[in-house]
């Protein structure tokens, strides 16, 4: 039972039926989709910053990529899609850096951490490649290296955590030519977002995507029309790991339920053996 007792110990005390609160000073990025011109410079900057092969400038001028929607994968941590609407617009996709990340809650070995900076990062030395993080992520972000027999990685945007540590901006934010991406403390970004909505109510959908979704995300979107259920998943406001973690804590509350079950079964066993016998049994 040693492992079991430790299990209860590994889980944090009493009220911790949801994950730890994120740092109040965490940063985020506000994506203003009404400003984005779909130049895909951010894609190129991201690849360069992560040492991934990039294509020549012509490739980034070719609009044909927009014909089919793309997802971030192991070769591109962020991608820009064009969404067809009355007035087509562009939407950059990457990890949302959730305040209560489902990936971190689900990972069997705890390979994900939500850092002070707001970045959700992944530790290659722990991962076993089970892909439960992909099952758990509400935004379908983590990508797996399916073609690798050895050391396949989970790949996702890391919010340029190493650059941030050196006091630099995330590569995409730095590169964006039209300031469609604003980096800053999350509180501040929310204030800016709501101010923009107030200033030009006709231009913006009144909701900031990511403000409340699954308990809040570090990356947030401003748009002309509602994104939830169209371009981005429609999600509730409760942290994604909430229900699952409560169940876990219910079953394991200080390991009382399993030990109680063990004792009860032991008693039944003793009782059946020593108690009065039923006829013929």
């Amino acid at each position: 039972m040693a492992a079991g007792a430790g299990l209860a110990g590994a889980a944090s005390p009493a009220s911790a039926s949801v994950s730890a609160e994120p740092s109040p000073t965490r940063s985020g990025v506000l994506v203003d989709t009404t400003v984005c011109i779909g130049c895909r410079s951010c894609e190129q900057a991201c690849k360069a910053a992560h040492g991934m092969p990039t294509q020549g400038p012509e490739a980034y001028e070719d609009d044909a990529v927009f014909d089919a929607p793309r997802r971030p994968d192991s070769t591109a941590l962020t991608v820009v899609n064009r969404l067809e609407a009355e007035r087509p617009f562009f939407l950059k996709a990457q990890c949302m850096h959730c305040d209560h990340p489902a990936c971190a809650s689900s990972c069997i070995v705890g390979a994900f951490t939500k850092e002070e900076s707001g970045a959700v990062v992944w530790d290659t030395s722990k991962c076993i490649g089970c892909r439960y993080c992909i099952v758990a992520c509400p935004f379908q972000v983590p990508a797996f290296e399916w073609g690798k027999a050895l050391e396949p990685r989970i790949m996702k945007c890391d919010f340029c955590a190493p650059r941030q540590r050196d006091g630099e901006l995330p590569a995409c934010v730095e590169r964006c030519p039209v300031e469609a991406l604003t980096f800053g403390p999350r509180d501040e970004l929310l204030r800016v977002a709501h101010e923009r909505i107030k200033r030009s109510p006709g231009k913006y959908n009144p909701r900031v995507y990511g403000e409340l979704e699954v308990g809040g995300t570090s990356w947030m979107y401003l748009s002309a029309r509602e994104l939830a259920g169209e371009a981005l998943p429609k999600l509730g406001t409760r942290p994604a790991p909430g229900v699952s973690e409560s169940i876990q804590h219910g079953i394991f509350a200080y390991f009382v339920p399993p030990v109680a079950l063990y004792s009860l079964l032991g008693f039944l066993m003793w009782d059946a053996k020593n108690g009065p016998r039923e006829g013929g049994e």
Partner: protein
Amino acid sequence: MTHRPTPLDAPFFTKGTVALSVLAAAGMAVMGVRLLFGLGAVTNLSNAYPWGVWIGVDVAGGVALAAGGFTTAALAHVMHKERYEALVRPALLTAMLGYTFVAFGVAMDIGRWYNIWHPLVMWNGRSALFEVGICVTIYLNVLYVEFLPVVAERFIGRVSLPGPLARWDALVDRLLRALDRGLSATMFSFILLGIVLSTLHQSSLGTLMVIAGPKMHPLWQTPILPLLFLLSAVSVGFPMVIVESLAASRSFGLKPEMNLLGELGRMTVPLLGVTLAFRLGDMFVRESFVYLREPSVPAVLFCCELLFGLVVPMRMLASRAVRESPPLLFTAAGLVVGGVLLNRIDNFIVAYTPAVAAPRYVPSPWEVLATLGCAATLILLYRAAVLVFPVVSRPAPGQGARTKYAVRV
């Protein structure tokens, strides 16, 4: 009638086992390719559908269908119904082999199979998968311990090591006897531990998909998934024993223990009833029945689970005539087994839709071949084990006290 487990006397190779061997070899070849070239080479998995039949069938299905081990142990040892003793060892063997293959399936499915030990030292108590992993690992070892007495019984008094090692025979024999005595005294604690661990991971297996939230079809996504998984595992335990026992009797030309099996069938009825009640109750409380209005693949499969996996077998097993007829009993128990298997496939594969639309996952022929290969290997090992070890009980001709360690020549 006294029953005594003995190694069965039958040839290992028959037409059936040769066919199974071919299947097993093909399955293992697929695993070889997977190890050399990665998961992408043989599976249709993608970032949109990260889990497929290896998790849904080999792992989730395997764990559920191995539930006969702990339910029979609870019946025979905790409730102390000794006459079911004859069914304990076959169920234990199935559970032991079943869980071994679950572990093998997991190892093949995870991208970094050589890191499979990580969860033992890198803990994440918030993760349902961690809990499943730890409990299954401990339980697998408990099952091996529970099986040790069978091995000891086979060799005590008959140890004969080859060649020069022969002079250790007496020592090994003494060790086996000591081990057996030690285990006899402490076995109850392992049996209890096995039951507790089973309860824990059978239910946590249900918690796994809870975190997928709206990606799970509402017909299946419910916070009581762990309870539903536990109930269905408990109710499939006896039917699985029935199916195996009838199949083995037939294959080895033994007389099936219809009395005992019929009793197990009768006890399954209320278990199915409780499972059905919770599933219907859950559906009405969450009002998920609205999804049954228009015909869709999930709706049809959901109804199949309830109808053919619960209602029909429940009605069948309630009838005495069914319980007394081997083919009908086999059919009823087989429906329960099929229903639970379908339920696991539904939960892990059918109910899952990625957050961003993508072409639906359909397993590749290789994935299916590997799964069938594992099942075939399991059956072959089962056959080999009952030929070598005293697992299956046969009515002993001469009555008299059960001698535990008869010296056989």
